[in-house]
């Protein structure tokens, strides 16, 4: 695993002086937001949100498999690595997540705010699910019923449901914002906000990487603009495309006290003409931060890099710089002042298969890129759950951006008699000591009378030499010869009693002329031929 690691202590030193204030229970604050009170003076080096400028950016090149097709295992891995590196808590992802919620108990209520306005590029349901998976593990078991998602739009259109999430979380479509006595003061008015957020102790803000057609001051829709929907953006009293309003919302005590984490879903992106439309890029990244200014500033960099690549001018989104400056002082917008933990996951395992082939099990896997990859320990299990045994090691390519093919042969002859299944997985080791396990693959063993087989030589055509694979299901006397096309025997490669298993016989072409040759194997009264081509 690459990236800059900090100790928990040094990590906390970068925290905000305001953390103590932010840790006050939300219930202690007024039901009605005070007039906009900008954060403390930036000249004191303090900001409104904890751990200003610290951002974890996780990239997994296998996270997106296609349109509306995401590898949730990759996303879970991204979140787990991201949250542990963001917090400096490495005991478990759930412990890392819990560390962001001061005073957390099993009675606490947590709100999640995804962005579902564009069902083609929403906050992916997989991203929400992996967060929920860890939320319910907090404190040894956090009640799913205390977790509520709120958004103005139809959850079902984006694949959100309690059955999909696998936990009994609540999905609340907040479309009306009646004044029930709790407001956020923004752009000169006290405005009602989401009841779900009001009743929550903590908030996780989960925007998507998209640009926006609002004015140049507000032409990205990231963490700040995702609060269109926390406060009613529509109607005659709406705040749609209102830069002052979104700054005031993020500066409000409601947000300061409750918003504890921003997760920017950058698996897909829209960099031009958003926020509607289909995906225009697949950065396959997830950004995590407690600082909404820093995460939006990093999002701006990503969007503008995509725009530059496609010949488009930059999006200014000046609200980000305004949010960082006095009097708001909400966080850090200058990348030079940030602590960015870039986590490029070491290996993108694109495929991992196992198949039974003439009594041996052939494992094949492919990587689409590797970073500091030492290699793969191949492990086998009889039940797929426990008792994993190391059966071999295959060296990795170190660092490469090119696809690599790997294979490993496990002679399962001894297992064939028992039938059932065998299970395999890869334990990938990077040069920094990081470990990652592949998915488990199963191979069903079949009871059947196996015949021996001479397989096609490799390589073929060949020049200096080639290998002839031959499998014997049981010990037998084997004769293996090579003939030229006139029928003359060129060489006898084997004439002996051979043990059961996979054997590879090497044929050295020596000074033979180019042309076709036949390899003939005889065992148990059966003759098998293969044709080979020698090209010099």
């Amino acid at each position, binding site marked *: 695993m690459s990236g800059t690691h900090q100790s928990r202590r040094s990590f906390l030193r970068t925290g905000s002086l305001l953390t103590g204030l932010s840790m006050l229970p939300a219930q202690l604050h007024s039901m009605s937001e005070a007039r906009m009170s900008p954060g403390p003076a930036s000249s004191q080096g303090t900001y409104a949100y904890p751990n200003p400028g610290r951002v974890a950016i996780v990239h997994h090149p296998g996270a997106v498999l*296609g*349109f*509306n097709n995401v590898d949730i295992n990759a996303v879970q891995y991204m979140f787990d690595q991201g949250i542990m590196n963001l917090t400096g808590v490495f005991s478990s992802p759930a412990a890392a997540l819990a560390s962001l919620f001061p005073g957390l108990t099993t009675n606490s209520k947590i709100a999640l705010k995804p962005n579902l*306005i*564009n*069902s*083609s590029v929403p906050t992916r349901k997989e991203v929400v699910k992996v967060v929920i998976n860890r939320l319910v593990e907090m404190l040894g078991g956090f009640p799913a019923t205390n977790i509520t998602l709120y958004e*103005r739009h*139809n959850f*079902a*259109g984006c694949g959100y449901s309690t059955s999909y999430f696998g936990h009994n979380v609540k999905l609340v479509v907040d479309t009306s914002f009646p004044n029930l006595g709790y407001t956020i003061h923004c752009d000169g008015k006290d405005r009602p906000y989401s009841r779900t957020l009001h009743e929550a102790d903590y908030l996780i803000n989960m925007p998507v990487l*998209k640009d*926006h*057609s*609002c004015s140049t001051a507000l*032409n990205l*829709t990231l963490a700040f*603009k995702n609060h*269109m929907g926390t406060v009613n*953006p*529509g*109607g005659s009293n*709406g705040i*749609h*495309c209102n830069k002052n309003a979104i700054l005031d919302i993020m500066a409000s005590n409601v947000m300061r006290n409750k918003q504890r984490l921003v997760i920017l879903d950058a698996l897909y992106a829209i960099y*031009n*003409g*958003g*926020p*509607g*439309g*289909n*995906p*225009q*890029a*697949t950065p396959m990244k997830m950004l995590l931060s407690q600082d909404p200014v820093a995460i939006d500033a990093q999002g701006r960099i990503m969007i503008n890099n995509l725009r530059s690549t*496609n*010949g*488009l001018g930059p999006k200014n989104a000046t609200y980000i710089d305004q949010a960082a400056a006095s009097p708001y002082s909400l966080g850090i917008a200058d990348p030079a002042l940030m602590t960015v933990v870039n986590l490029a996951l070491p290996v993108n395992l694109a495929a991992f298969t196992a198949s039974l082939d003439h009594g041996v099990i052939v494992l094949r896997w492919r990587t689409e890129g590797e970073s500091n990859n030492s290699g793969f320990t191949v492990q086998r299990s009889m039940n797929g759950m426990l008792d994993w045994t190391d059966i071999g090691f295959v060296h990795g390519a170190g660092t490469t951006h090119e696809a690599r093919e790997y294979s490993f042969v496990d002679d399962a002859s001894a297992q064939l008699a028992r039938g059932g299944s065998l299970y395999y997985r890869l334990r990938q080791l990077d040069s920094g000591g990081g470990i990652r396990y592949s998915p488990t693959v199963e191979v069903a063993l079949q009871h059947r009378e196996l015949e021996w087989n001479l397989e096609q030589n490799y390589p073929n055509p060949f020049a200096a030499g080639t290998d002839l694979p031959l499998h014997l299901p049981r010990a037998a006397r084997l004769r293996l010869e090579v003939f030229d096309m006139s029928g003359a025997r060129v060489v006898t490669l084997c004439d002996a009693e051979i043990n059961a298993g996979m054997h590879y016989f090497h044929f050295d072409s020596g000074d033979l002329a180019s042309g076709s040759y036949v390899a003939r194997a005889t065992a148990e009264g059966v003759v098998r031929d293969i044709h080979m081509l020698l090209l010099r």
Partner: protein
Amino acid sequence: MRLPSLLILIIFITGCDKASTPDSPDIVTISDLLPRANEISGWDRMSGNDAAWLATNASELLYHINGGAELYTNHGFIEATMQLYSGIVNTQSGIECEVQIYDQGTESFARAVYDDPNNVFVNPITPSNPPSAKSQIRKDIFSHSMKFVASRYYVLISITSADDKARDVLEMFALNIAGRIQ
């Protein structure tokens, strides 16, 4: 492949011109400009809450498309409608085609939407059978989109396929809609 499609379309559009005849409903509302289910062979209307909408004022449009709304409200927006269709592109089923039609009041306003700096098509492709003089296609990583202006209408069609044959589908929808508008 495109010539036969064009011939079929010409026949098809000729049929569309009969929209005001007794055996075909008149075009009364903006929703009548949308192709009917399977009117374009193999392209059925999808159902469900998110498969169609009608916005007759800016507030309703904001609800449906949020950040995209000001592109239209800045240029005379009157009303708009959307319909999702499902069909096949080059043997791949389950492809979705989304049609959005915006009545901008005047052709000048519709052209302003088309030319808005926030509505740039990167690396635009000229349609083989353009529905109007102002029409472009863009290809994205998983999809194609087409925009065009016909009279006072701005039309945006998106299809969830990056296959080149998806452009034929876009053009069929576009010519169908343009034929109705005319």
